[in-house]
């Protein structure tokens, strides 16, 4: 049965379906940010001195920086002193195994369709579940560790593998890279850590599931993936948040290091609460994601399906340092109602014969604004570098906007850079054709949109693809007629 059919069958619920929240007893920091709060977070996590210093340094840099305003998004000024930077569901003891986890927490994830029970799960996926500021469970740790794969929460990695964390933390996204990465570096609370040793092909999908639960809380997680020589891993990230009237800030950092001959696939289905139809509430999603193809023949591919958030600011990028290395970016970004998305990628070609491929599909409906912003930079040394970019926009109605901002910067004559862009509208004749065959308007739109996004959807692991298709349909619910 094809993915499209699935979605149409399951396409029943009408509103943002993850809008509920659970009243956990939480362990929280007071609102506001200052050195004391950072010390508080670091102490909560029993961090080594060097990490506290690293955070403080980032914080001091952050206070000297100003919020970027170059993107094509508008939102009211964020009061950084009105946010809680740490909130953890209270667990009596630190759980030693999955059996000891608070059943309420497990239920919360079950409701999201994510079972943390290893027996119940499809064997193909290991999960790290993060609520607000902490990782609450990681599945299949033992199975993976037999292969030497480390997959755990960031906090655990700091305790158990400090040498790896110290070596790679900030190596791809330096703390002072930008305003939000500096903020994240100062206050990040948890996230996932993953290390694939030399020559190991990770036998299952690794995934992190982020959930913002508490009110007035920012989520600042950090993911660090290190793929050693000749290794392979496919990594998934999913996220949801309750419906709340106030905006909530999510400023994550993801760093990927791919050594010689290593391959990393990183897939995201982003479904943060987008705000209501009038544009009230929703998540501000300001994320820095970057990979370095450090070794020869390494490959990193980013696939993202962005349906949520009130405002998105996100450019998963690849630094193609190793000769013959490859970077890919496949993106579907859907905006409806008052959502704003400014997303794209950067491909920095440093090594020889480096290749990059960008496929971006933007879908705008309602009064939303959807921008693709991409940079292809071929440096002097990068002889025979190749880039192909394809940016397609699909408009629904005439109150929304689609914008494309490609920046191309070539310093080596042997480079070949191609950019193609199209803008189309869902045609009334297409919808009528579907209706004439008995398909209702909403399903027709879902069908057409999924067709438009297919090239990207096909890059997602099967389990995610079904969810992603459903999300596309849900996001566009009520956007025609």
């Amino acid at each position, binding site marked *: *049965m*094809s993915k*499209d*059919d699935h979605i*149409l*069958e399951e396409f029943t619920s009408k509103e943002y379906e993850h809008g509920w929240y659970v009243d956990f007893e939480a362990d929280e920091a007071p609102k506001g940010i200052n050195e004391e709060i950072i010390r508080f977070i670091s102490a909560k996590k029993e961090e080594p001195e060097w990490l506290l210093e690293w955070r403080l340094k980032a914080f001091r840099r952050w206070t000297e920086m100003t919020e970027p305003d170059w993107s094509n998004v508008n939102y009211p000024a964020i009061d950084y002193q009105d946010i809680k930077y740490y909130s953890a569901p209270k667990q009596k003891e630190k759980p030693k195994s999955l059996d000891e986890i608070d059943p309420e927490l497990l239920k919360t994830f079950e409701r999201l369709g994510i079972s943390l029970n290893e027996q119940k799960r499809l064997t193909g996926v290991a999960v790290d579940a993060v609520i607000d500021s902490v990782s609450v469970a990681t599945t299949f740790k033992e199975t993976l560790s037999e292969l030497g794969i480390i997959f755990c929460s960031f906090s655990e990695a700091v305790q158990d593998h400090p040498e790896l964390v110290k070596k790679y933390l900030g190596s791809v996204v330096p703390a002072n890279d930008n305003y939000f990465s500096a903020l994240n570096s100062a206050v990040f609370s948890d996230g996932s850590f993953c290390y694939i040793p030399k020559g190991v092909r990770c036998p299952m999908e690794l995934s992190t599931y982020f959930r913002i639960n508490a009110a007035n809380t920012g989520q600042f997680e950090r993911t660090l993936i290190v793929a050693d020589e000749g290794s392979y891993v496919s990594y998934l990230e999913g996220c949801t948040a309750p419906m709340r009237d106030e905006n909530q800030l999510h400023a994550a950092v993801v760093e990927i290091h791919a050594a010689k001959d290593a391959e990393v696939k990183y897939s995201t289905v982003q479904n943060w609460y987008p705000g209501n139809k009038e544009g009230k509430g929703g998540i501000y999603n300001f994320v820095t994601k970057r990979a370095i193809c450090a070794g020869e023949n390494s490959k990193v591919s980013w696939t993202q399906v962005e349906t949520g958030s009130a405002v998105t600011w996100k450019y998963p990028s690849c630094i193609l340092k190793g000769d013959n290395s490859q970077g890919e970016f496949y993106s579907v970004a859907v905006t409806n109602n008052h959502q704003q998305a400014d997303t794209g990628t950067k491909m920095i070609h440093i090594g020889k014969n480096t290749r990059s491929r960008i496929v971006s599909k933007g879908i705008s409906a309602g009064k939303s604004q959807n921008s693709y912003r991409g940079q292809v930079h071929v440096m002097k040394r990068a002889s025979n570098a190749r880039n192909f970019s394809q940016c397609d926009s699909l408009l629904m109605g005439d109150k929304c906007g689609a914008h494309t901002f490609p920046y191309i910067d070539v310093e080596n004559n042997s480079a070949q850079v191609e950019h193609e862009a199209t803008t189309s509208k869902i*045609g*009334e*004749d*297409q919808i*009528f*054709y*579907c*209706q*004439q*065959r*008995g*398909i*209702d*308007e909403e*399903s027709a739109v879902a*069908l*057409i949109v*999924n*067709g*438009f*996004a*297919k*090239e990207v959807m096909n890059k997602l692991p099967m389990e995610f693809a079904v969810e992603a298709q459903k999300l596309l349909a849900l996001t566009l619910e009520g956007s025609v007629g």
Partner: protein
Amino acid sequence: MLKINNLHASIEGKDILKGINLEIKPGEVHAIMGPNGSGKSTLASVLAGREEYEVTAGSVDYIDKDLLELAPEERAREGIFLAFQYPVEIPGVSTTNFLKTAVNQVREARGLDALDAVSFLKEMKAKMKLVDIDQALLSRALNEGFSGGEKKRNEIFQMAMLEPKLSILDETDSGLDIDALRIVADGVNKLKSDSNATIVVTHYQRLLDYIVPDFVHVLYKGKIVKSGTKELALELEEKGYDWIKEELATA
């Protein structure tokens, strides 16, 4: 099963249909002919429920229902099928997938269970034979890059899958090669029964050799100006439309 009374329709303020009267009974085949721009496709679109056209007067009864009250997809589920003169392309959506969605939504509306993948495929295989269509074509994106003839054949294949009560074929013959014309016509004939009816819009008598009409109507300037049996089509083929225009002028 279909009764059109004094139907007037306009688009962008321009009157196109100016009082159509037509009755179709189960089991009948009606051919509609007429010069370019006379309103044949407009009539087909109005019957199928295209919203751009405004019905300014008249009524259409379809099996005890007021057809004009129904949404386009409801009409389709009630058994109205339009083989488009110009089928649209839907990139990224395979014909198979498209049809599976369509068939199951129609089935649901008719109170039938959705077909699972296996029975759907079986059904497809059977109907593919009927119009001799290639599986490879059906796994490609709907109509995208299809040749003119392939598009038309695909329309009839969809008709076979959806088992309509009233089919409207809008110039399905144009673009078909001689062999394809025969195959497609054969398919249409095999789908014919005492309980369903067909409207065939065409410019050429040739198609009517294969799909033999019970009645032939001439649509001119938004009105049916002449009706007859299949001999009328032969006469038109021979003499063109001028004599009808003259008849009208002197009347």
